[in-house]
């Protein structure tokens, strides 16, 4: 295949994203060692460089960090997803201005196709600078001929201060490429997790260079076609395309662990109707309807001293729907059916599946179409978009407070709630 030029795929990745979001509005925390915790303040999900240097591990339970935290004054904050999602949108929109081809890969990463752009280096620095000035978010930029190499280049940009946040793999000579790949352990390659790393090591593949040069047929025989794709990407043959439009979800799950154990049916129903409201709003946002609803309840499986009961029930809906009120009635009924006294429930959730686009409405001649709540749902979505999630709720939602997440250290919603804007 002849290509006009080598692809220049750029991966922009926010540095310590959640921690950086918090710091933008708290300049006094700029040099404080800090972490952001997962739902219910359980585990560390984002660390400042200071916290990394002190030895806090990604995913580590916060209670385990207590001795370290007290000795060094590490600050922990609850996750504030409203803030992170809004900051992410701002960053992604700015990056989208640099190219018509963008894939938002995760909340804090985006691929941008800059193939054919002259002055790639200058543009990359400009990109980094603009995101920094306009949003306050520090980012690193990795450039490569394939997604896998762009990801790896980003890793280099992050690790090596000399790169000043931008690393261009395409600018290296073949000798430099080999020398670089020889220094990076294979575990840093996109898609190579802990288990694969172990298996690769057993086959003598330690560095990224080893993987690039590995014997192709034996690699495919042992690790399958996905690993072969990764290898070809390391050899600069693009195998993984840019996905510009995220595919609609095939199922939508809304579930949470409770802040404290729940024993009463009304509280469970209250929680479930909030999950239903969130799931149905997502469903409507992608213009889908669901044909199956599943509800599950779970006791705390880590508390071996307590009786365990984790039931789950799914039923087909008589008509595919995205109506919060209809789905809520089914969730309610399923919950009632499964609920048993004498258990302490730790988690519950709703899963909507068999999704289809709303346009494919098929009338059932046994079950007449219910009078459409479509208008009502539209109004509900508009009100909640305008006045904040939960401004308008189903009446079963929010009467009981016991089940909500523990978020004892959450920051204000600086960017999405007028009452929470920073005060000077």
């Amino acid at each position, binding site marked *: 295949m002849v290509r006009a030029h080598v692809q220049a795929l750029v991966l922009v990745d926010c540095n310590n994203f959640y921690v950086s979001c918090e710091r933008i509005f708290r*300049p*006094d925390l*700029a040099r404080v060692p800090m972490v952001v915790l997962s739902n219910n303040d359980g585990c560390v999900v984002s660390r400042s460089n200071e916290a990394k240097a002190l030895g806090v591990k990604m995913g580590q339970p916060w209670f385990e960090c207590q001795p370290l935290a007290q000795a060094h004054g590490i600050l922990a904050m609850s996750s504030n997803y409203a803030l992170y999602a809004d900051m992410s949108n701002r960053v992604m929109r700015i990056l989208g201005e640099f190219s018509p081809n963008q894939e938002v890969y995760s909340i804090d990463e985006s691929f941008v196709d800059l193939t054919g752009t002259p002055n790639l280096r200058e543009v990359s620095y400009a990109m980094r600078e603009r995101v920094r*000035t*306009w*949003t*306050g978010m520090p980012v690193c930029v990795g450039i490569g001929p394939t997604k896998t190499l762009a990801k790896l280049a980003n890793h280099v940009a992050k690790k090596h201060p000399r790169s000043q946040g931008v690393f261009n793999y395409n600018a290296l000579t073949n000798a430099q490429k080999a020398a670089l790949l020889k220094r990076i352990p294979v575990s840093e390659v996109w898609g190579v997790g802990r288990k694969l790393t172990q298996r690769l090591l057993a086959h003598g593949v330690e560095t990224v260079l080893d993987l690039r040069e590995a014997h192709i047929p034996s690699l495919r025989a042992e690790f399958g076609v996905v690993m072969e794709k990764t290898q070809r990407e390391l050899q600069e043959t693009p195998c993984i395309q840019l996905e510009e439009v995220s595919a609609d979800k095939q199922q939508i799950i809304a579930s949470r662990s409770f802040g404290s154990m729940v024993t009463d049916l009304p509280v469970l129903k209250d929680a479930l109707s909030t999950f239903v409201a969130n799931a149905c709003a997502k469903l409507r946002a992608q213009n889908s309807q669901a044909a199956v609803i599943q509800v599950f309840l779970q006791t705390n499986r880590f508390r071996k001293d307590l009786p365990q009961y984790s039931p789950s029930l799914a039923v087909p809906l008589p008509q595919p729907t995205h109506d919060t009120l209809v789905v809520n009635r089914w969730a309610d009924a399923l919950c009632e059916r499964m609920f048993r006294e004498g258990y302490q429930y730790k988690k519950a959730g709703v899963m909507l599946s068999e999704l289809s686009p709303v346009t494919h409405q098929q009338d059932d001649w046994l079950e007449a179409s219910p009078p459409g709540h479509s208008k009502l749902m539209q109004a509900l979505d508009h009100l909640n978009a305008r006045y904040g999630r939960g401004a308008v709720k189903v009446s079963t939602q929010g009467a009981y407070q016991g089940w909500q997440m523990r978020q004892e250290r959450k920051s204000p919603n600086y960017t999405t709630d007028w009452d929470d804007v920073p005060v*000077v």
Partner: protein
Amino acid sequence: MNGIGIYEGDELLVDRSIEAKHGNIVLAVLNDDFTVKRLYRRGGVVKLIAENPLYPPITLKDGEELLIWGVVTRNLHKLY
């Protein structure tokens, strides 16, 4: 900033995409704290002017770091 009509409790719009020029009202970070001041930048001298006779201007000393967070472009003043 009473001197130019910014009062306690007012809501300010801050534009981060504008480069702060001499004379702009800015949201600055000084000693890890937010502050709203008029930016003075002439002949290598950087000052933050309070626009309130009760507060003297703050001149940036050697080694002190000033971060301009954004430029204040609007004031939403509450009437009640």
